[in-house]
């Protein structure tokens, strides 16, 4: 790697310029599927962050050992191992979250974001850049999921992180915690994101 990468930009690109959810549209299934509350979104974001960081580290360390023809299956095995670790740890220590996220935990394996970063970044860059890229992308993903979860929880349930701010029997937009609300809330969030980035350019 002859070219020098600006590490600060490398870190920030995952959060704004190449945000995995709003800009690159990667990992949409968990984004829409688990964000019925801010806590679930945060939990999913951190689980994905961990898998992404670890897979970036391992792929970057052994990139010269993997023959290029079988690199995709090799990446998938590395990712699947870390997903299994996350699955077991969550089941043992945070059973509540494990139940809430359900099938979306094993499905972290097929999150295109992780495989995409392994293929497009970690297999071509140094260990340090890959770690920073993994953390940046992971934080960008976590922020997007938490924001979407917060919007849906506030509108749909009148609470945030389980802290209620309206009375128990107040009318809230239940639609937003149901499936259609996920699509609609994300549509307006990405509209907002588009507007903000268009303006700053």
């Amino acid at each position, binding site marked *: 790697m002859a070219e020098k990468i600006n590490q600060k930009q490398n870190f920030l690109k995952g959060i704004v310029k190449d945000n995995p959810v709003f800009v690159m*549209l990667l990992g949409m*299934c968990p984004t829409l599927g688990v964000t019925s509350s801010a806590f679930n979104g945060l939990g999913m974001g951190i689980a994905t962050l961990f898998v992404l960081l670890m897979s970036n580290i391992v792929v970057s360390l052994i990139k010269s050992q993997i023959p290029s023809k079988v690199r995709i299956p090799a990446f998938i*095995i590395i990712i699947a191992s870390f997903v299994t670790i996350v699955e077991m740890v969550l089941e043992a220590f945070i059973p509540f979250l494990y139940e809430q996220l359900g099938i979306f935990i094993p499905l972290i394996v*097929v999150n295109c974001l992780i495989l995409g970063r392994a293929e497009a970044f970690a297999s071509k860059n140094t260990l340090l850049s890959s770690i920073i890229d993994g953390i940046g992308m992971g934080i960008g993903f976590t922020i997007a999921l938490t924001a979407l979860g917060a919007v849906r929880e506030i509108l749909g349930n009148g609470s945030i992180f389980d802290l209620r701010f309206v009375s128990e029997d107040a009318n809230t937009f239940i*639609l937003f915690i149901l499936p259609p609300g996920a699509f609609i809330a994300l549509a307006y969030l990405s509209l907002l994101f588009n507007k903000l980035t268009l303006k700053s350019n």
Partner: protein
Amino acid sequence: MEYIIILIAAVFVNNIVLSQFLGICPFLGVSNKVSTSVGMSGAVLFVMTIATLATYLLHEFILVPSGLDYLRTITFILVIASLVQMLEIMLKKVSPPLYQALGVFLPLITTNCAVLGVAILALGLEDASLLKAVFFAIAHSIGFALALIVFASIREQLELANLPKGMQGVPINLLVAGLLSLAFLGFTGLV
């Protein structure tokens, strides 16, 4: 009767895309033309059925008896990835016309979380049997096809519409998907 309920539940009530959020990537990615969405649906039907058959047998006869249940995620994704590769090679030899029709979509399916998702969900069926698991996979891929083709037809019309700048692309597609999902919500309570 039981099978009819599985079919209706999978296609309308718990539609895999619009209410379970599996397979969103191809749903948003290859839905700009009706013809490509039909091809993708065919490929998903094909792969999902065979993959569920294979993973169900693997789980029932190898993983559970040897107590290796926790290896489910790794083994399933490997089986699906190699199955897709194998199907591609076999189709090329055995049925070139079918390969022509499905060919480009096959590699995309490995990262389609609907396939892995249905394979895992099929294990949790009530008094599961091999036949039921395979039927479950077929029913879900019909649901996938319905959602994808309806969405693609709407998007074809949408290209003629005059939209504000920030709304073009992703936001309007998600909004259409949301309204479609709202329509499917009406089927709740059918079974």
